[in-house]
């Protein structure tokens, strides 16, 4: 058993890459180093938000943790056990405690199964968790818990709206009574009004069941809302990590600052000191990331050193860690008080 101080999930120097094949010719066109050397800890009952734009590797990271993508090297420790070296039966036992909510509520539910079949599939695959004669009752309980009508258990996914389907996805993720739930852009496909409902549901579930969340999103205000701690990713690496408060009020990495400043806010006049940093250029291809600091091609602070020496993720200003040679607090806080 782990002591309360130990993190539930601990990732160390994780590398995951996958070959890119051109769709039409089936030839290998290169490899994407999607996750290159990521480390973080997630304590039990807490939420780690993972933000980043396309190509940042956040989804690949999630898929590696849950076992959908094979890592190249590194450690994924869950409850003290290294998932990458654990033997078969123990691994299944451990994996059962990690579940995932997917982005697309339309694609992530098998259209041929009823909601009851979708949820109870977890118990079919893992015999012994819930005896078969209790399935119907348990399904009803789960549906009620995620805010759906238990009488709709015999309906098919297409009979539900997007938000309701996402609730079904959450119910499925809860069926095995997991301790860690990975939410991969779980609210991104939803309309704002429905997104807020699901965010509240997730918060309630965490409070009731003591779940840990690895919450992946590109929407910074959503991440700020739900996370205790935040890691910012850029091209396969974590560039800044700290508590939500630290990241949103005192970001020190230029990328985090730019990212925060680029988020459109509904009432810009309410924070007149907010200054937008418009980055030049595009995100480089993850197939051939820049040398040294990966952000240097778009950074206004870049110097020669940045091209040759890769900045490690470290605490340079005595507050929280960042991967920049020249970290400094923004002149005006990006997200201000």
């Amino acid at each position, binding site marked *: 058993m782990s002591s309360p101080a130990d993190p539930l999930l601990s990732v160390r120097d994780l590398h995951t890459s996958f070959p890119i094949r*051109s*769709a*039409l*010719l089936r*030839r290998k*066109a290169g490899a994407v180093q999607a996750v290159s050397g990521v480390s973080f800890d997630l304590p039990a009952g807490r939420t780690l938000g993972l933000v980043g734009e396309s190509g940042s590797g956040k989804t690949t990271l999630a898929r590696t943790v849950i076992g959908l993508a094979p890592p190249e090297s590194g450690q994924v420790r869950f409850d003290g056990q290294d998932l990458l070296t654990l033997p078969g039966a123990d691994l299944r036992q451990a994996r059962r405690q990690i579940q995932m909510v997917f982005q697309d509520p339309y694609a992530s539910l098998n259209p041929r199964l009823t909601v009851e079949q979708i949820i109870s599939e977890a118990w079919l695959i893992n015999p012994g968790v819930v005896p078969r004669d209790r399935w119907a009752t348990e399904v009803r309980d789960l549906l009620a818990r995620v805010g759906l009508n238990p009488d709709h258990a015999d309906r098919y996914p297409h009979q539900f709206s997007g938000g309701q389907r996402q609730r079904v996805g959450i119910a499925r993720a809860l069926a095995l009574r997991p301790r860690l739930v990975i939410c991969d852009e779980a609210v991104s496909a939803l309309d704002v009004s429905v997104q807020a409902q699901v965010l509240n549901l997730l918060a309630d579930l965490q409070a009731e069941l003591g779940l840990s969340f690895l919450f992946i999103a590109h929407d910074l205000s959503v991440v700020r809302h739900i996370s205790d701690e935040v890691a910012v990713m850029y091209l396969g690496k974590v560039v800044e990590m700290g508590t939500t408060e630290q990241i949103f009020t005192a970001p020190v990495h230029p990328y985090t600052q730019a990212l925060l400043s680029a988020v459109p806010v509904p009432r810009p006049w309410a924070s007149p000191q907010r200054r937008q940093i418009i980055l030049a250029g595009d995100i480089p291809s993850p197939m051939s990331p820049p040398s040294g600091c990966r952000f240097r091609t778009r950074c206004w602070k870049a110097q020669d050193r940045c091209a040759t020496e890769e900045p490690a993720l470290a605490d340079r200003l005595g507050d929280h860690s960042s991967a920049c040679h020249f970290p400094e607090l923004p002149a005006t806080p990006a997200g201000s008080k």
Partner: protein
Amino acid sequence: MTAYLFRRTLFAVFVLWGAVTVVFLVLRLVPGDPAQLILGSDATQDEIARLREQMGLNRPLVVQYGIYLGDVVRFDFGDSYRYHSDAMGLVMGRFPLTLQLAVVAMAIGLVLGISLGVVGALRVNRLADRVVSVFALLSQSMPSFWIGIMFILVFARQLHWLASGGHGGFDRLVLPGITLALPLIAILIRLTRSGLLDVVHENYIQTARAKGLSERLVIFLHAIRNALIPIVTVAGLEFGKLLGGAVIVETVFSWPGVGRLLIDSISARDYNVVQAAILLIACGFVLINLVVDVLYGYLDPRIRLGR
């Protein structure tokens, strides 16, 4: 593009090698003795033994295969037992006639297939579309040998408009050409129609309309070019099938091409000619496909420039 071409050429060579190997294996591995097969059931043991020796059938299979490959590379398929001349030479002599037939059928197929397909797509679910669809269904469902016979029955025997067979002028090409083209027309109609219907829903068609281009330009400039890409591939594959299908049509119309020679050689057990004919057609097929690949790359920059 060069790298792409190189890869495709390499693949073509690989495929040809595969075809040669298949022919070799089928000839050597089927139950029964090839020598016996060639000489027929009334051959004496001595004759068979002599032929086995001559064909190298007593040696290990791998050695036989090596010798066979060497012969193929030199275009040496042995002599025809019937004509006592070079088998490949014999086949090559007939090849232009088959090619002529296939090219005519291809031309008819492309013109009719694509234009009828476009008509179907532009008039989707209206009368013209339904007529075209029924025509396509009939063309692909009726056996071509039977259609050929019906053509002869009607146009040659009853109406006396055209000759029933043999080769010669244009009038003798019409019936076999159309017969051979019918299945191709059917496939191209379906492909063009569905391809165009798909493309018309693409976002870039909306963009073209938002630019204020006339509907005619939108369809004939922006839509057809994209819809053509899969058509080119299929047309290439179909050309190969035409070469194969020609076997039947040539038989029906007594057209003295490779197909006719092939069937005659099969009944005469002239296997050297049979394999020469088969490999020549396969070779033509592979070459056509190579051309199609190049054309495909030209039409679709996403392939040409590699993604």
